[in-house]
Every structure is written in structure tokens, then in C-alpha cells.
């Protein structure tokens, strides 16, 4: 037996820069979930989900553990594909897939790891370089300083010596540095102190203001309140009895 229902979109604290309807144009990024069903073995995590997410606002994805929040983000990034339905990602009205899609997304998830034997600077040089961005030494310092990982604080040590909070900040530095059009954030405030969580909220708001599509999986009331709209996933969890 499987229970639960799927997405129940709700408005969050409201559109700060115009309604969603005003943004229903070809400009910017959009992700369309068309009757999407995702299963892992016999376990249906998402069933028949139809939803459109657009750039220029923060969309929170909420739900209990196992409800499919992380799966939702992976589907959006085409890191996994649905068993039924389709996920269409478009940038400025043109559908993007494969390498073109990957070049437009940035991800912060608990599963994402950076190279432990490299320094923060070397990790950033690698991921930003792979996106065709090369910063000056001052540019890297500024980016690391922006997330609280300035050289004076870390001493240029390798990532293997970082705390979980510092590793989370490094993921955020890569996110901010890539100029991605789609931000997929899974519990981005996890392991951060209050100042760090406030930084994430401010950066996400600024990115949405630039037209970035910000999709934010969270169970944190503060992060959910920051969102312009919310998708609640109830999931399809197996009953225990």
C-alpha cells in the first residue's frame, strides 16, 4: 500500500517583483514537470507531478523526509530521469539538455563533495575553469571571502581539514562563482551558523532578482518563509502496518 499525494503549490510570502503571470514569457529560465512519476524499485517517490517553475523568484520545495525533495532537484537537473512524464528545462525560450543544461545549473546538496586533497582555491579553479571562468588571484580571494573562507581564516589548508560548515561554504562559493541561470539548493543552510544562513537567503534573493531560477528544498521555516512560492511534496511512503 502506498499513501500520500503530490505537489500542492502554495504562495509563500508573495511575489516581491511582480506576479508569476507577469513572468510567463520566453525570457529567463523555466523548468516544466509534465506528469512526472519517479520510482526507485517498487517505491514511488513522485507520482503524476505537473508543475512549472520559473526564473526570477525563489521556489521552496518542502515535505517530510523521504517525500522526494532531493529527487525533485535531481529531476530538474536531469541527473536522474522520470519513469513517466518529462522534465523540460528551457533557457530564454529554448529547451536545453545534456551539456547545454549542465552548463546552466549549479547545485548545492549534501551529496556534493569537493576534492579533499585540494585547497579551496584549487577546487574553485577546477569547477569554475570547467565552466570556462578564470578568475584572478584577487577574484578567488574575493569569492572565498564572500562566503567567509578568506585565506587569513583557512591558511590555505586543504579541504580535508575543513569543518562541515566550511565545506558547505565552499559549495556556496562555487555556486556564486559560476553565474549559473538555475540554482538547485538542497538544504543550503545546513551546517551553517545564523550568519551563514542569512548570507544564503540574501544571495538567493539577489540571484532571483537577476532572473535566476532558484529552487530550494528545505524544511527550515525561515528558508520557506523567504520563498516566493512553495511546492509541498507529500510523497508516497510505505505504510508501516
Amino acid at each position: 500500500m502506498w499513501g500520500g499525494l503530490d505537489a500542492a503549490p502554495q504562495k509563500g510570502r508573495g511575489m516581491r517583483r511582480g506576479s508569476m503571470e507577469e513572468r510567463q514569457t520566453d525570457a529567463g529560465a523555466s523548468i516544466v514537470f509534465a506528469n512526472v512519476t519517479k520510482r526507485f524499485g517498487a517505491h514511488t517517490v513522485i507520482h503524476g507531478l505537473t508543475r512549472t517553475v520559473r526564473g526570477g523568484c525563489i521556489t521552496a520545495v518542502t515535505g517530510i523526509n523521504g517525500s522526494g525533495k532531493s529527487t525533485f532537484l535531481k529531476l530538474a537537473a536531469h541527473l536522474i530521469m522520470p519513469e513517466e512524464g518529462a522534465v523540460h528545462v528551457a533557457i530564454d525560450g529554448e529547451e536545453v539538455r545534456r551539456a547545454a543544461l549542465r552548463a546552466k545549473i549549479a547545485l548545492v546538496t549534501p551529496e556534493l563533495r569537493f576534492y579533499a586533497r585540494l585547497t579551496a582555491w584549487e577546487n574553485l579553479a577546477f569547477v569554475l575553469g570547467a565552466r570556462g571562468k578564470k578568475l584572478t588571484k584577487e577574484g578567488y580571494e574575493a569569492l572565498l571571502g564572500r562566503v567567509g573562507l578568506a585565506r587569513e581564516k583557512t591558511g590555505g589548508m586543504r579541504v580535508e581539514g575543513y569543518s562541515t560548515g566550511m565545506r558547505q561554504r565552499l559549495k556556496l562559493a562555487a555556486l556564486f562563482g559560476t553565474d549559473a541561470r538555475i540554482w538547485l539548493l538542497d538544504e543550503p543552510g545546513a551546517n551553517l551558523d545564523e550568519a551563514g544562513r542569512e548570507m544564503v537567503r540574501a544571495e538567493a534573493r539577489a540571484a532571483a532578482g537577476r532572473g535566476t531560477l532558484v529552487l530550494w528544498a528545505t524544511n527550515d521555516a525561515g528558508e520557506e518563509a523567504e520563498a516566493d512560492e512553495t511546492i509541498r511534496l507529500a510523497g508516497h511512503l510505505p505504510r508501516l502496518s
Partner: protein
Amino acid sequence: MKPSAWQGICLVFRKELTAGLRFRAAWAAMLMFALTTLACASMALQGGSLEPRMQAALLWIILFFASMAGADRVFADESTAGTLLTLRVYGASQAVLLGKLCYTFFLLLVLAAFTVPLFLVFLDVTVKEPLVLLGAVLLGTGGIAAAGTLIAALTTDASTHSGLFSVLMLPVILPVFLPAISLTASSFGADGAGSPYLGAMALYDAILAVGASVLFDSLWYED
């Protein structure tokens, strides 16, 4: 801005080299395997000598199994460390494949540069055709690198990674392995193989590299 293919390959190669030099476990495992096997073979022979074909076969057995101690880890290490997702999100498929292939080839060249001279000294082997030996080593290690990188990518998510890697590697690498042994034997003074084998090995290496490149996109992108 999209980086050029060459810039992407160099980035991946440099990342692999930096991380590899700081850890060195793969390097140490390969070189120690080669050294131990050479020492055992040398002591077992007690000054006796082998036929050129046996010498060549022994050399390639050492190179092949020593390379297995390091070359199969190129994607499995990323998976274990959790960095495979980072690579998938930020790295372009061809840059990742070719960067890792170049690094594996470099690793195997270092292994060969370490093993072959020691082999010649320990087993008292005289090389009659050094250029043929050089060609066989370059093309043989190139083939192992190309096949190893592709099969490592294919088996990354398999629960029985190491076993599957070895099983799949054998049939793919045989067309490189057998001519490499014949050519090496020829360079040690045996009759037979010559330049046509070099051409065939180069062709097979190219087919492996192109095949890996074509297949890799379907592994890297789900859609």
C-alpha cells in the same frame, strides 16, 4: 563562456595529477607490485635466462597487473569520495574522459619507465631493437589506458567493481596485449612480428579511444 576542449582536458589532467601526487597510494601500489614481481622473478631464475617470448610475456604480465592496481581507480575513487556528482555537474563529458585517459596514460608511462629498465637489468635481457620495444610499450600502455578508462567508467556504479573490471578488461585488451608481447619478443631477438603489428596496435588504440569517446556521452548524461 564555454572552455575549449583542450582547456577542459588540461584542467582534469592537472586536477588528477595534483590529487594523485598528494595521495600517492595508486602510484605506490603500482610501483611496489612491479618491483616485488620483478624481484621474485629474478630470484627464482637464479641467473638463468628465459626465451625471448617468455621474457616478453613476463614483462607484459607485470605491466598489466601493476596497471590494474591503479588504473581501475580513476572513476571508482571519485565515486567513493563523493566527488563524482561534482564532476558530473561541472565537468564536460569529453574533457572528463580524455583528461582521465591522459592521466592514466601518463601513470602507465611512469610505470613502464620504472619497470622496463629494472626488468632488463634484473633478468639480464638484451634489447636488439630498442625502437620496436619503445613502440610496443607506448602503444601497449596507450591501449591499456584507453580500455581501462572506459571500463572503469562503465563499472563505477557496479557493486562488484573490481571483479567486473577485470572480467571486462581481458577481452577488450587482448588485441593490444598479444601484439605487444610479439613485438616485445621481437625486440628481444625472437623471429616474427614487425612494423605491421605496430600499425595494427595503433589502429586498435585509436578505435578504443574513439569508441570510448562515443560511448561516454551516454554514460555521462542521463537525458
